[in-house]
């Protein structure tokens, strides 16, 4: 039996770290339980000659492939998109590209503006100060003045344009379409104890330089110095409730598999859009036979994944290859709804640099572009460092049949039922994706590329996990209220991407963290006014 804490946070990733840091100033006793380990910078692949190969081993993005002790298996069912994540201090910010756009104002009002899905109970304006605070904490590079966004000021200058960026810029100017240097959570100058980016180029599986903002090196050092306890290798099995229906703590397993009960005054769940519904559905009691806080039946439903399409081609001039962060520009030309199209809402185009030598060889082999035999070497030289690529991030509208449930057979190493994903792409998304691929080819052609390749959707593209415990004011149509508190359990909060009402068409980390800071701020205000559990 452990001492009771005031606040128990489950998960140390993007949102858990932000909420821990924000609440630390209350001087409450705050504990975060994380199922994974700290990852040392010296462990990251870019330290060794096998840096690219480890993307297919212990730093694979798919947890089923990676299969670390700290991972849990996921049954991707018949989903055309597989869930990817990372489990450790920093969560999936360890293993992301740090492409860091915010949702747009219109994303919070899709029902009002476009007559689809639902409006959010919060808006861009409400979140704006938290976006700015989060940009400061994470350390964001970019350029103020993007006409696709309300004016904001990233604290560091943008990532370099490079050869590929210049190609894209010229092509998009020729077409008269929008492009802009991305907001990116990568330090382009020394920042808050982190060294500036030196273009290691293999950002996704962790940054040995520490330039990429993962929360283990941004929020956590500040939160721990402020008194928050972070306990690793603690895998939570279930949230426990007392006779009054309030959360009383959690049961977790330590690294040796020993079971513990950790009591708490309040519980905050930050386990991502798959891990959170999995935990809630595993938290069954007489009061909550279908999972905790699930009177709406919506826990696990409305899963949104942002189906990605990858489109690429090859130019004659050698480009940047995998040197430099892989994403440094975006186009929002097709982001907002256009009634002339056969779909509602829109998408972001991410403009890429190239790939590493191994990824180029493997993908070109799989897609039949790279011959075997005598001609292998000649063709490979035409491909390596000549690739120009881009991806379409489609807005995924919520549909209740897209969901996370508990697999009846598959379990993790502690015997906890694993998540199962049932997901199909809607016709709207398919049309949007086709539009994005067609526009991508136009851009690539304008950039002088040929020999196109397309992967649509990207199989291992389930990076963005949203919607499975949505927020709203109606307890019958949502799981949490407008400030993240569960309708059914008044001392249980959710702060990760699960609470998103709609997905927008951008990478979600910036907005997930701004929303977590907003919820933490509301918690602090309500603590002051003694209305937190009203």
């Amino acid at each position, binding site marked *: 039996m452990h001492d009771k804490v005031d606040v128990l946070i489950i998960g140390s990733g993007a949102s858990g770290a932000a909420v821990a840091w924000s609440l630390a100033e209350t001087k409450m006793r705050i504990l975060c339980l994380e199922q994974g380990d700290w990852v040392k910078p010296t462990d990251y692949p870019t330290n060794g000659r096998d840096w*690219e190969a480890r993307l297919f081993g212990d730093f694979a993005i798919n947890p089923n492939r990676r299969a670390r002790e700290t991972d849990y298996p996921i049954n991707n069912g018949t989903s055309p998109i597989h869930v990817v994540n990372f489990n450790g201090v920093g969560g999936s910010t360890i293993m992301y590209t740090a492409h860091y756009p915010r949702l747009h*104002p219109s994303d919070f009002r899709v029902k009002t503006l476009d007559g689809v899905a639902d409006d959010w109970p919060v808006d861009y304006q409400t979140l704006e100060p938290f976006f700015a605070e989060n940009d400061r904490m994470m350390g964001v590079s970019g350029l103020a003045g993007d006409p696709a966004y309300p004016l904001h000021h990233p604290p560091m200058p943008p990532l370099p344009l490079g050869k590929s960026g210049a190609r894209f810029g010229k092509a998009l100017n020729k077409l008269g379409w929008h492009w802009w240097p991305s907001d990116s959570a990568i330090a382009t100058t020394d920042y808050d104890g982190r060294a500036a980016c030196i273009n*290691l180029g293999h950002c996704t599986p962790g940054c040995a330089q520490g330039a990429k903002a993962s929360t283990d090196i941004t929020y956590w050092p500040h939160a721990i110095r402020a008194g928050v306890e972070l306990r690793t290798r603690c895998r939570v099995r279930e949230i426990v409730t007392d006779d009054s229906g309030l959360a009383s703590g959690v049961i977790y397993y330590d690294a040796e598999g020993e079971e513990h009960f950790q009591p708490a005054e309040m519980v905050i769940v930050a386990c991502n859009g798959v891990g959170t519904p999995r935990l809630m559905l595993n938290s069954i009691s007489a009061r909550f036979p279908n999972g905790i806080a699930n009177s709406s039946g919506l826990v696990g439903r409305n899963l949104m994944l942002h189906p990605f399409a990858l489109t690429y081609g090859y130019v004659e001039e050698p480009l940047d290859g995998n040197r430099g962060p892989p994403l440094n520009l975006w186009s929002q030309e097709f982001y907002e709804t256009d009634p002339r199209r056969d779909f509602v809402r829109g998408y972001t185009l991410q403009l890429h640099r190239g790939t590493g030598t*191994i990824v180029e060889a493997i993908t070109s082999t799989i897609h039949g572009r790279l011959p075997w035999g005598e001609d292998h070497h000649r063709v490979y030289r035409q491909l390596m460092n000549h690739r120009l690529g881009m991806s379409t991030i489609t807005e995924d509208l919520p549909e209740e049949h897209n969901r996370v449930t508990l697999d009846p057979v598959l379990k993790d190493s502690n015997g906890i039922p694993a998540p199962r994903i049932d997901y199909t792409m809607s016709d709207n998304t398919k049309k949007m994706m086709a539009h994005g691929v067609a526009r991508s080819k136009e851009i690539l052609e304008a950039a002088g590329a040929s020999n196109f390749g397309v992967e649509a959707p990207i199989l291992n593209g389930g990076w963005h996990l949203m919607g499975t415990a949505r927020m709203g004011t109606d307890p019958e149509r949502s799981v949490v209220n407008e400030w993240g508190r569960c309708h059914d359990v008044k001392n249980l909060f959710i702060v990760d991407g699960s609470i998103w009402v709609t997905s927008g068409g951008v990478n979600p980390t910036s907005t997930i963290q701004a929303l977590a800071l907003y919820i933490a701020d509301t918690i602090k205000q309500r603590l002051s006014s003694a209305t937190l559990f009203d």
Partner: protein
Amino acid sequence: MSLSDTELSDLRAFVGTMIPASARYGMPGADDDLIFADIVKNIGRDLDDVRTALGRLAGIAKLDPVRRLETANAFRAEGGPTLVAIARVILLCYYRDDRVMRSLGQEPRPPFPKGHVVEQGDWSLLDPVKARKPFWRSAS
């Protein structure tokens, strides 16, 4: 469990067919002693798939070079996860060999700590976009 001598023989014939040595480009073949040893060492979690693939390629070591390539390409045309697994382990070992990297004009080193230089580029390209009026939709 490791591969049998027969399986190793077929694997070596297959990798040498897939990526043969090239005097023109100064490239070793994937059946080079060092590279092949690296491939065998790194099969690891793909052992089952590699073994399945070798079952479909059984006897390739006994064929002449022309028939080997025909057999390899027929296997490739079938596709599937076993193709992906065996091709991946071969390629990720081949394309990190020092001689291969040098021949491709790449420095045989890890990215950290030296990093790379990426040119800033001509930011004046952005001027037409800067001149554009804001086009985000107001939600109020």
